[in-house]
């Protein structure tokens, strides 16, 4: 199950996000890390330090690309310039699969730079699936879409978020980047059972899993990626691994970033949830 056609039949284990504050440590200490996830947009440039750093990383480590602005859910067409730059980066990194979010964030050529939740309608699902297929055909790499954290729900929705996710990935025939922290955050904000969500996820399509920390406010939970993973999220992770098998897992830590060792240690806790008989293989 861990290696499937949605993650390029790879078996990557536990990785962490590549972040600027850790560069010095990584180059000096050369720590053993299964893989790094990069934010594609930070490297979709013509030259200079970002690409030089990336090339150095690629000499020693495996890299998977994660995007934040493809906006499969936006009604407007895919941005051709974006796709061209993304393809150049795919050729550079040889990422076995590529991920971005199942959300929208641009309209009429203007960008929010945010991950705005979808109206869960059949029209939106069809449009998103069409764009995912177009992107995959152009980029020639498997694509997995990530469920986002959300703070609002639309009246026009015709189904639950997990039904919408299923609708899209079945139609697009793509993978899922299952973010269990996002499921937890949304479940708290919208009063649903996160395990019900998990049960509905087609396990065979899970290409990768995200774990992260968040911030609890008085009336809502915000997906801030600035804390360790809390136990209820680990519980969801454990259930996801039971369902999908030991899957490539990535810890996101994007604000108030602690030392490399602390981030890596937190990520490696994920290994505890892989059944012992499968741990060797993963």
């Amino acid at each position, binding site marked *: 199950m861990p290696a499937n056609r949605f993650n390029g039949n790879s078996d990557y284990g536990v990785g962490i996000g590549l972040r600027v504050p850790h560069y010095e440590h990584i180059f000096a200490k050369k720590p053993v890390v299964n893989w790094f996830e990069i934010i594609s947009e930070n490297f979709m440039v013509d030259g200079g330090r970002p690409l030089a750093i990336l090339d150095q990383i690629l000499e020693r480590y495996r890299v998977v690309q994660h995007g934040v602005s493809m906006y499969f859910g936006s009604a407007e067409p895919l941005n051709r310039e974006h796709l061209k730059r993304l393809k150049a980066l795919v050729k550079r990194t040889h990422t076995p699969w590529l991920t971005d979010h199942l959300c929208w964030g641009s*309209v009429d050529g203007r960008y929010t730079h945010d991950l705005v939740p979808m109206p869960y309608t059949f029209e939106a699902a069809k449009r998103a699936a069409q764009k995912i297929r177009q992107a995959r055909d152009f980029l020639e790499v498997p694509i997995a879409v990530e469920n986002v954290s959300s703070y609002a729900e639309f009246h026009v929705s015709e189904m639950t978020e997990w039904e919408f996710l299923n609708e899209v990935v079945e139609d697009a025939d793509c993978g899922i980047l299952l973010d269990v922290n996002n499921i937890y955050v949304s479940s708290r904000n919208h009063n649903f059972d996160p395990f019900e969500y998990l049960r509905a996820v087609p396990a065979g399509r899970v290409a990768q899993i995200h774990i992260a920390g968040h911030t609890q406010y008085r009336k809502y939970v915000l997906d801030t990626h600035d804390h360790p993973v809390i136990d209820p999220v680990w519980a969801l992770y454990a259930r996801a691994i039971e369902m999908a098998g030991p899957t490539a897992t990535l810890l996101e830590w994007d604000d108030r970033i602690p030392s490399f060792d602390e981030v890596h240690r937190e990520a490696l806790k994920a290994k505890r949830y892989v059944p012992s008989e499968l741990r060797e293989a993963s």
Partner: protein
Amino acid sequence: MNLVELQRAVFEVTRQPLTPSERMRPRLPDGRSVREIARALIKPNDRLSSFERLQIYNQQYWFRIMGSLSEDFPGLRSLLGERKFEKLAVAYLNECPSESFTLRNLGARLEAWLRVHDQYIAGVKRAALDMVRLEWANIEAFDALDLPVISAAGAGKIAGGTVFRLQPHLHLLECAYPVDELLRRSRRLEAQNETASNAVLNFPQKARIRRSALPRPGKVYLAVHRLQGAVYFKRLTRDAFALLTALGEGKSLEKAIEASLLRSRRRVDQIGAQLQEWFQDWVSLGWFAPPGR
């Protein structure tokens, strides 16, 4: 309401600037009630009204783009002070929302916008425009394409008719104020400025910087360039600047020298040694690429 109509309606509200207390405004500029729009679009829950739920996206939008612009223009912030910079940034971003998939391009239209809306830089107009040009050149130089360079050996073959291409990371700026010094003092680590997928907690309070006094006017000629991944500001003489500018315009070496001498009213024999020194320096910095086909 179809998909695009819903997305337009949400974006129209979330891109409205926040109130001074960082809340969502109750009305759109045309007078429509945001509370009613939110109620029509968003389900409330047991803790938050439709308005409050939409407000989270309104705040996220502004926290993110204001944070990004602030990171990109520390020199302008330092020159204007935080309060004036914030006012300018809100007005600019309100009129010029991002049209790029990357936040890197957020400030691309700032100089042109400020030339039309100079009330936001009243009293420091020339210095502020110089600073914006310098800070945008810094962004461009940081990740511009690397073309092959003309080596020292290749430089030996340079003749009067040679046409160079300047490296895309090299930007030449004529400034009325020594804004390079001011920027060096107010610069923050570029390491802070990365795109990620997390939500943003607030305006970048931790990044606040002290206002700098307006420097004395004094013309400086700058080459903003990249060397081994880092961006530098190199001061040039007026003649060197003129020569490089002419070369950048595609003039042959001979014509570029003529053009720059015309400006300085000096003869070739007066600056021969100087020219050789300049070219050795510029070649060693990798500023020249072979002419394109």
